[in-house]
């Protein structure tokens, strides 16, 4: 099963990852998920983890300011922290594989001509720093794979992959084309990691390895040269030769007179590929299907290890229909495209390697031996992480100017919402003006972002006890303990009021499972998992011990 982690919402990718079950842990919860050893990431079911990081979100508010040496070093520090979490994950889950993307230079960052003309820091340096961290990660761990998102964006174009309106509507940035490409690339990468790549490249000769027909154009008439279009065939042969050098087996399946071909291989000095580069050669007038079956039996390999290349669509069709296990990519009708076609459609899809050698593959274990005394010695706990965020909580009491936002929060919040009561602006206004109700709005800011008003508590005070009428929080800030600070600061405002008890209710819905344990975690007691209650003073002490940072009350 695949765990999907991200700093943006990539849930729709699940629909494209057909081969495997997957689970998306939530928008921007990846750090909390890594640090929480009870999260799904640490369950044995998960054998693949895909961490997709969006560079703009990593930059946060830095995105909107022109970069400087200072912001670059802040960024690098932030990254070091994030990567130390990733290291922890890789060590703890050394039996799983982690796929993480590199990033392109995104035009939406604050750019101007200075980006290419300034000798000082530019956003390109930020991108470089991130990608270099991946290189380091890759050299430390063999169970970390880098997904080449930069290449995909370069090939397809930013505007064909990103759709900003979904960002504003639901914290998604990518369109379905991007989700499809990402999921294909992810699957290819995993296949390659597991050694499920193709083993044999079977080639036709005439108009495939050279231009023209051996039997008609002859030794010196065929096109294979350094001038004109003959060079395209030479480039193609160079690529095939280097495939052979990384361990791909080459074979010939061609309709020719063997003597004509012998002569070309022996006497045409423009040929890059030599006769001996091909382990099996079927050069005859037999049916190519039959030849291919013989090649399989000569090599003792299954048909699913073969890729067959032929310029003739009829021959390709014949193989496809009779031997569906064999991969038969289309051949470009214009040979000028042969190089880019072979790189993208053949090498990338069928022969791409994750490792050059077996030594590479065993790196994890070398690294693990040193890990404890190196980076891990300063590994952070979730508490350290929360402290390092410099979270600033502001709590606004009965502030009428926020009533629209507050009503909207009650309407739209489905997950971290303990009671899911929906209110209108008029309702909120009524609470604000009432003697018994108090409305608390939560403002949240950390070193990455100012999130604005993201939480709400409505308290009913009957003189002796407090009833939590509403408690909700936007999912954006879950996992940073803000809910406990929020509750504590809210309750503290009743300190002089001689309150005995605090009561609360959790109403389960289809979507608010995430909040199910909140009241117990906060120190309230329950017998039926619906009604919660505790002494006021006890609760204050419990929460004071639990919270790691403070909040500020703003009473305008």
């Amino acid at each position: 099963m695949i765990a999907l982690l991200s700093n943006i919402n990539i849930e729709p990718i699940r629909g494209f990852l057909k081969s495997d079950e997957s689970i998306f842990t939530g928008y921007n919860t990846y750090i909390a998920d890594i640090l929480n050893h009870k999260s799904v990431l640490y369950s044995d079911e998960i054998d693949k983890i895909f961490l997709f990081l969006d560079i703009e979100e990593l930059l946060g508010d830095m995105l909107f300011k022109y970069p400087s040496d200072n912001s670059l070093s802040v960024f690098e520090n932030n990254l070091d922290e994030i990567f130390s979490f990733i290291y922890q994950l890789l060590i703890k889950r050394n039996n799983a594989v982690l796929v993480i993307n590199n990033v392109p230079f995104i035009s939406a960052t604050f750019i101007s001509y200075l980006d290419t003309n300034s000798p000082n820091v530019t956003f390109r340096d930020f991108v470089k720093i991130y990608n270099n961290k991946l290189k380091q990660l890759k050299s430390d761990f063999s169970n970390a794979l880098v997904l080449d998102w930069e290449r995909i964006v370069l090939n397809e174009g930013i505007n064909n992959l990103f759709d900003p309106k979904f960002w504003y509507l639901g914290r998604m940035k990518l369109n379905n084309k991007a989700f499809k490409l990402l999921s294909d690339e992810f699957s290819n990468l995993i296949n390659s990691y597991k050694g499920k790549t193709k083993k044999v490249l079977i080639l036709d000769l005439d108009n495939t390895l050279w231009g023209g027909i051996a039997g008609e154009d002859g030794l010196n008439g065929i096109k294979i040269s350094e001038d004109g279009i003959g060079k395209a065939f030479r480039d193609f042969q160079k690529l095939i030769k280097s495939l052979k050098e990384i361990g791909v087996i080459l074979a010939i399946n061609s309709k020719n007179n063997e003597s004509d071909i012998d002569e070309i291989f022996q006497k045409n000095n423009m040929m890059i590929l030599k006769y001996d580069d091909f382990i099996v050669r079927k050069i005859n007038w037999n049916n190519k299907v039959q030849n291919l079956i013989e090649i399989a039996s000569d090599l003792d390999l299954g048909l699913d290890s073969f890729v067959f290349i032929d310029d003739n669509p009829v021959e390709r069709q014949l193989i496809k229909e009779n031997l569906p296990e064999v991969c038969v990519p289309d051949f470009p009708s214009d040979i000028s495209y042969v190089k880019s076609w072979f790189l993208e459609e053949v090498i990338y899809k069928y022969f791409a390697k994750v490792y050059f050698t077996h030594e590479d593959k065993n790196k994890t274990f070398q690294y693990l031996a040193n890990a404890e005394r190196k980076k891990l010695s300063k590994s952070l706990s979730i508490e350290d992480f929360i402290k390092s965020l410099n979270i600033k909580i502001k709590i606004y009491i009965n502030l009428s100017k926020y009533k629209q936002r507050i009503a909207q929060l009650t309407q739209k919040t489905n997950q971290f919402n303990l009671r899911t009561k929906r209110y209108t602006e008029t309702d909120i206004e009524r609470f604000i003006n009432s003697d018994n109700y108090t409305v608390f709005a939560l403002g949240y800011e950390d070193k990455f972002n100012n999130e604005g008003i993201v939480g709400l508590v409505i308290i009913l005070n009957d003189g002796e006890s407090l009833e939590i009428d509403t408690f909700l929080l936007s999912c954006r800030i879950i996992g940073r303990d803000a809910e406990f600070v929020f509750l504590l600061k809210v309750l503290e405002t009743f300190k002089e009021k001689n309150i005995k008890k605090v009561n609360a209710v959790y109403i389960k819905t289809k979507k608010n499972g995430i909040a199910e344990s909140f009241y117990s975690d906060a120190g309230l007691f329950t017998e039926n998992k619906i009604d919660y209650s505790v002494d006021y003073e006890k609760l204050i002490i419990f929460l004071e011990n639990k919270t790691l940072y403070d909040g500020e009350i703003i009473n305008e």
Partner: protein
Amino acid sequence: MNEKELQKSIIDIMSDTFNVKKEKISLSASKSNLDEWDSLAHLKLFLALQESFRVNFSTDEIDSGNSLEKIYKLLKDKIR
């Protein structure tokens, strides 16, 4: 594409996105009467519609297109 065909293709996409059998999606299906049609599914639906019909919706259109009928009307104008 005539009215029936267009409605059918919308229902196909809905059924795929919501993971709901086609028979369960009536012509009066809407965000308020179909459980599986929540806010995440809503965005996924519009991602899929954009891709399948090669069209673009504005933010307002996505916000307001909360029933099969409304989506049909939006699409009819776009793919003409």
